[in-house]
């Protein structure tokens, strides 16, 4: 292994700027003449707008403009869109309601933006925002997804009767019914997958700029996919034509999905910049982010799993209502459908699966992809059922899983996915060993002596990542292809710039991508620069989400490197006066096979540009190649996490005392970075299980609207993690990579809840399992036992 090549724990190249305070996030950028935008937002969850009075605000000092939805309409600015078409089972298309960037006639959730103030300073803009008077006709509101479809519930959009966006299904209902009807045991669960706020520590921000000389717009934006933002803003919203719009995603402080989407605020900043002819900056406050960022999860599910007398799964039937909030966010429709139901087979050979999903509007913030997006919800359903099944059947939970594991690959599930490779038994076994599960009962007794309840919980998860084949997702309704692009520019001195359509916001691409390139070209890693995040610099690309950057984006880089090598060999052949077929490239040197003649990489790259040694007619000068890579399948990372908890029954406080994670991500480029991704994912999964959950009150007011009430995991809420890996290479891409970004968030919630329910001897606990909830569940279980 090369010291910086694939498999080496190379320290990150990007860290120097972050640890010295020299990172450059959107809010760190200051454009000449920049002014500030502040949004006026609805305090009501559901109301008709009778009138908006802006005159008083306009006259305040420093105010340049007060713009409303009427101004947007006058300028023919289009609505925000959801880019993934889902059809209901009756064939009808999903009911996408209009989503103007500024609400003009009606507000649909607390925080819905109504007007923007542009002023010299943000204090002046805030002063003015308070002077905007909106006359509301307040309407009844609904936030609970299960209640949204009820007769008499408030109707949010005319286009969607019963607030129903679609009624979708997947699988074979008859087969699943028959499997459950003939099963020896049927385990049923009602599950609420709690709504979460992504809470990247960098709040969203945007700077819009318009150059009247060139007619060119620029948008600096906290986004995970600048090209998609440019495409949507030009083609659908229509603020600027694509070729006149530059979108830059500079350093971005975490995304977790929430920065994929095209939001009203960035559109408005760009549009307003032309109106006031000054750069317009908006920086989201945290309390504003709680309202305005797309949330995650929020499913209500009833699921049944059937088992035969040997503990083999006969079938699974799932019914889910997914809350998409007040408007359909950019990819919202795909999350509870193709990113969810297609994973319901888990790691198991399940003969029959049927899943029906209704998506509904409610008077709450929009819901879209958040780390894992659909796959944590699916895993939670499957892995809770397995654990409860084991308890009902009296089979050891690890053993029950073993009995049902898929062992032969490729494996076609009943829900679209074709698993290409994996070894679930290996990861379970390794996890059981590492967690010292054999000694668990001893530890449980020790805890009991201290008055504590100890529990152990498993989660054997699978995810579909590296999203993914464009043709496949297109046939499922995606409005975009999900390939990735790369361009490799070799400079005359031999240093290399790699332009990728991916975008990093914590994942470390500047290091891992460089590792692959440096190893392949035999050059120092410091001679490789990864360029991303600027549509003026980088060719069209799809961005970073769904654990796809290495599996798809890096595959494009590899494909471009193949082309580079091929051309460099041609040049080397000229230099060495040998046949191209005899040129061998290794360790940064081109040699003629079977001779001691060779030439260094740097010599070839220089000759590529001076072009003295070959005819420009026969071989084009230069060394620059591009590639687009479209995978043939999703990738299927999988693994097993084991959580051990200790509960103080007097207070209900749960402490995670041990965490074991064994993951199979295929080829690992940088184990240090991969482990870091696993840690972060687990932390978010533990957050969902123990701490985090959005609460709206009866009037659809957001009660968990700041870190004072929304419990973001802190260092002392979390354990250190024991992380290990097994490897089965992904056959679908050149490096054998599966992706690692979401695994922890997918695996952790079920592992935690399985451990808690094991500890307290009751399945009756919802997420988040707060101290109060656990205390109540323990008390109820004790009362139940006493009564029995």
């Amino acid at each position, binding site marked *: 292994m090369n010291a910086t090549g694939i498999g080496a724990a190379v320290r990150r190249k990007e860290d120097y700027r972050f640890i010295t305070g020299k990172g450059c996030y959107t809010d760190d950028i200051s454009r000449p003449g920049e002014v500030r935008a502040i949004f006026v937002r609805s*305090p*009501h*969850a559901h109301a008709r707008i009778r009138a908006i009075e802006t005159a008083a605000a306009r006259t305040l000092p420093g105010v340049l403009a007060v713009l409303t939805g009427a101004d947007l309409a006058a300028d023919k600015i289009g609505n925000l869109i959801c880019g993934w078409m889902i059809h209901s089972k009756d064939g009808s298309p999903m009911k996408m309601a209009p989503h103007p960037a500024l609400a003009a006639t009606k507000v649909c959730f*607390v925080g819905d933006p109504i007007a923007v103030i542009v002023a010299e300073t943000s204090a002046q803009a*805030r002063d003015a*925002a*308070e002077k905007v008077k909106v006359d509301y006709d307040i309407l009844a509101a609904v936030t609970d997804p299960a209640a949204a479809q009820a007769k008499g519930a408030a109707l949010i959009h005319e286009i969607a009767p019963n607030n129903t966006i679609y009624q979708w299904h997947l699988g074979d209902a008859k087969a699943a019914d028959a499997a459950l009807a003939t099963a020896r045991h049927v385990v049923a669960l009602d599950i609420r997958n709690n709504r979460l706020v992504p809470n990247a520590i960098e709040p969203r921000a945007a700077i819009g700029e318009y150059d009247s000389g060139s007619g060119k717009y620029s948008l600096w934006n906290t986004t995970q996919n600048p090209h998609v933002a440019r495409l949507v803003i030009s083609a659908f919203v229509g603020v600027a034509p694509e070729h006149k719009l530059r979108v830059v995603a500079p350093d971005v402080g975490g995304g977790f999905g929430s920065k994929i989407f095209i939001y009203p605020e960035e559109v408005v900043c760009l549009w307003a910049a032309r109106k006031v002819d000054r750069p317009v900056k908006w920086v989201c406050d945290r*309390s504003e982010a*709680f*309202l305005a960022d797309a949330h995650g999860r929020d499913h209500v599910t009833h699921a049944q799993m059937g088992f035969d007398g040997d503990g083999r799964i006969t079938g699974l039937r799932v019914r889910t209502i997914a809350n998409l909030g007040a408007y359909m966010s950019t990819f919202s429709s795909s999350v509870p459908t193709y990113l969810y139901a297609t994973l319901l087979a888990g790691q198991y050979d399940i003969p029959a699966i049927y899943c029906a999903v209704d998506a509904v509007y409610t008077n709450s913030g929009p819901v879209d992809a958040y780390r894992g997006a659909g796959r944590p919800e699916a895993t939670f359903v499957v892995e809770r059922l397995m654990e409860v099944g084991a308890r009902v059947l009296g089979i050891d939970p690890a053993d029950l899983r073993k009995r049902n594991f898929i062992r032969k690959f490729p494996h076609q599930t009943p829900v679209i996915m074709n698993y290409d490779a994996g070894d679930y038994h290996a990861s379970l076994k390794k996890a059981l060993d590492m967690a010292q599960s054999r000694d668990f009962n001893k530890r449980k007794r020790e805890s009991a002596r201290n008055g504590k309840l100890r529990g152990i919980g498993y989660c054997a998860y699978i995810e579909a990542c590296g999203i993914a084949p464009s043709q496949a997702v297109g046939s499922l309704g995606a409005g975009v292809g999900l390939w990735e692009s790369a361009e490799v520019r070799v400079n005359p001195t031999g240093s290399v710039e790699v332009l990728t359509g991916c975008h990093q916001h914590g994942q470390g691409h500047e290091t891992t991508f460089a590792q692959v390139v440096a190893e392949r070209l035999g050059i120092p890693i410091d001679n490789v620069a990864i360029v991303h995040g600027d549509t003026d610099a980088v060719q069209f690309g799809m961005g970073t989400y769904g654990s796809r950057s290495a599996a798809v984006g890096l595959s494009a880089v590899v494909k471009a490197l193949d082309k580079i090598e091929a051309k460099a060999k041609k040049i080397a052949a000229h230099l060495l006066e040998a046949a191209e077929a005899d040129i061998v490239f290794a360790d940064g040197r081109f040699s003629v096979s079977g001779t001691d003649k060779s030439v260094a990489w740097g010599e070839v790259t220089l000759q590529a540009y001076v072009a003295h040694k070959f005819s420009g007619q026969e071989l084009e000068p230069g060394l620059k190649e591009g590639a687009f890579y479209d995978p043939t399948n999703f990738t299927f990372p999988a693994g097993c996490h084991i959580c051990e908890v200790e509960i103080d029954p007097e207070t209900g406080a749960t402490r995670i005392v041990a965490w074991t994670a064994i993951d199979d991500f295929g080829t690992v480029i940088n184990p240090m970075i991969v482990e870091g991704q696993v840690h972060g994912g687990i932390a978010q999964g533990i957050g969902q299980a123990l701490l985090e959950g959005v609460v709206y*009150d*009866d*009037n659809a*007011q*957001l*009660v968990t*609207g*700041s870190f*004072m*009430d929304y419990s973001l995991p802190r260092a002392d809420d979390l354990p250190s993690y024991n992380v290990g890996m097994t490897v089965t290479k992904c056959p679908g891409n050149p490096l054998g990579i599966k992706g690692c970004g979401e695994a922890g968030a997918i695996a952790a919630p079920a592992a935690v809840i399985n451990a808690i329910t094991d500890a307290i001897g009751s399945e009756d606990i919802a997420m988040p399992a707060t101290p109060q909830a656990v205390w109540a569940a323990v008390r109820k279980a004790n009362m139940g036992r006493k009564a029995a």
Partner: protein
Amino acid sequence: MALNMSGEVQLGAPRDVVWVKLNDAEVLKACIPGCEELNKLSDTEFQAVAVAKVGPVKARFKGRVHLTDLDPPNGYRISGEGEGGVAGFAKGGATVTLTDRDGGTLLGYVVEAQIGGKLAQLGQRLVAGASKKMADDFFANFAKAVAQSQG
């Protein structure tokens, strides 16, 4: 967020006297905690400005107060809604019942209140206690006002 409270106050005055006080804008103004203005628009409608203060939080609410379900001298319903600017909005009402008790009057109240916007979002831990205090203060002030008029 929605809040519900109820309580009783024993007043040392006959029902008809209490009833008059309950309909007296000056008395109401003096009793509503933080009330800066209460202007009569009609016998049953007032325009009000009140400052709600909860610890570090101070918000000035402007709105209307209505009296409905008037049943002299047995009780009424007093309700109101106000805009607190950046803080959000508040609305709520109290059903007040008067019954003869121990030579005086027993005033019973059932209050429900709702707040929305920033206060609901950021001040939720404070709101329940503050609302209860405001209701308690109002009726305590009212009892005092009745007692003074009797003294």
